[in-house]
């Protein structure tokens, strides 16, 4: 396998050109589910980034040892193990975040983004490219979730990262921290994102 991949491009593509949320629309379940506040979005993003990084690393390392017919179950076991590790570590050391994210931590297993990168990238590329790919995609995911969380928290609760800038009784767009607000905010942010990146492309 010739190392023809431009590593800088490889890293950056996850953040801009192939952003998992705004461009590829992968991993919608946690995206819509936990981004009701900036902190939750950020926490979920980082947890996913970690799992993605570890699974891409391991998949890339063992790819030649896995017969192609059982590659999907093998990837799923690897991913599920890292997700369970994340869950146990969060519960032990950051119980606050563990309670906030709740059911969405185990659901990282079925995040399309992670299996997608394992199957489409890490199982075909060397370790260095796979790590950079995971970092780029993961950071793109963190950024997107945080931006979405910030937007929803500002509109829906009048605060950023729990810092309130309107009075306690002010009327805010409560809709934006409820599930329908997630779809609306995601749609408009995607439009904005694609509009901005289209010019530079």
């Amino acid at each position: 396998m010739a190392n023809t991949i431009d590593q800088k491009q490889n890293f950056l593509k996850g953040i801009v050109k192939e952003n998992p949320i705004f461009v590829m629309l992968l991993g919608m379940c946690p995206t819509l589910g936990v981004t009701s506040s900036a902190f939750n979005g950020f926490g979920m993003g980082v947890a996913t980034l970690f799992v993605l990084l570890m699974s891409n690393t391991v998949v890339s390392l063992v790819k030649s040892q896995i017969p192609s017919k059982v590659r999907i179950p093998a990837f799923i076991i690897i991913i599920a193990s890292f997700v369970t590790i994340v869950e146990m570590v969060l519960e032990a050391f950051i119980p606050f975040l563990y309670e906030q994210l709740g059911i969405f931590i185990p659901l990282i297993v079925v995040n399309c983004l992670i299996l997608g990168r394992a199957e489409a990238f890490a199982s075909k590329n060397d370790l260095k490219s796979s790590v950079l790919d995971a970092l780029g995609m993961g950071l793109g995911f963190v950024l997107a979730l945080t931006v979405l969380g910030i937007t929803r928290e500002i509109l829906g609760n009048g605060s950023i990262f729990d810092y309130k800038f309107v009075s306690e009784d002010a009327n805010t767009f409560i809709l934006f921290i409820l599930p329908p607000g997630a779809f609306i905010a995601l749609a408009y942010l995607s439009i904005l994102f694609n509009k901005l990146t289209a010019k530079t492309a």
Partner: protein
Amino acid sequence: MSKKESTFLNMALSLIVITLVAGFSLGFVNNLTLAPKAEAKLAKKVNALKAVLPEFDNDLVSEVVRIKTTVAKDSVEVYPAFKSGKFVGAAVIGASEKGFSGLVKIMVGFKPDGSIQNIVVLEQKETPGLGTKMKEEKFLGQFRDKNPSDYNLKVSKDGGEVDALTGATISSRAFTEAAQSAYDEYMKIKDSLTKSNN
């Protein structure tokens, strides 16, 4: 790069190896996090107990009384508090499944006469910014020093005296239901608690 062929033996072997490695590493991490997890839980419980009860000097966590009930799935936990041998109140855990997103679990501290000392929210999955405001002083403060025997533990919409959270009536209902269940349990066993004076 040569991929392994998908023969039966190869497939079985590679899956066995992967599951074995995964199993052992999970067991290892589980062992590592077991103690911190228990500590985090205990610390949370102790903090909650200190917040809801008057001053006490007995070892509450070890003197918990568990009561089997027909209402809740788990047994109800009651923590009787004593100060120099005198009964000063009890903390009761109340729960309701009727929250906006499921379980709402609270700890209610009662004085010996049955009035509420303080309430702490232990578990909830309510909507951030709406139902989660049940953890704030503005909502919790209204229960302090109220005696449920002459204070209707229901939101004002249902004819009670509790001011519901704005936009989170369902969460408020679950909260009051949990508080009511804690009160009911407390009244049932109050006499046996005061007698079991150490």
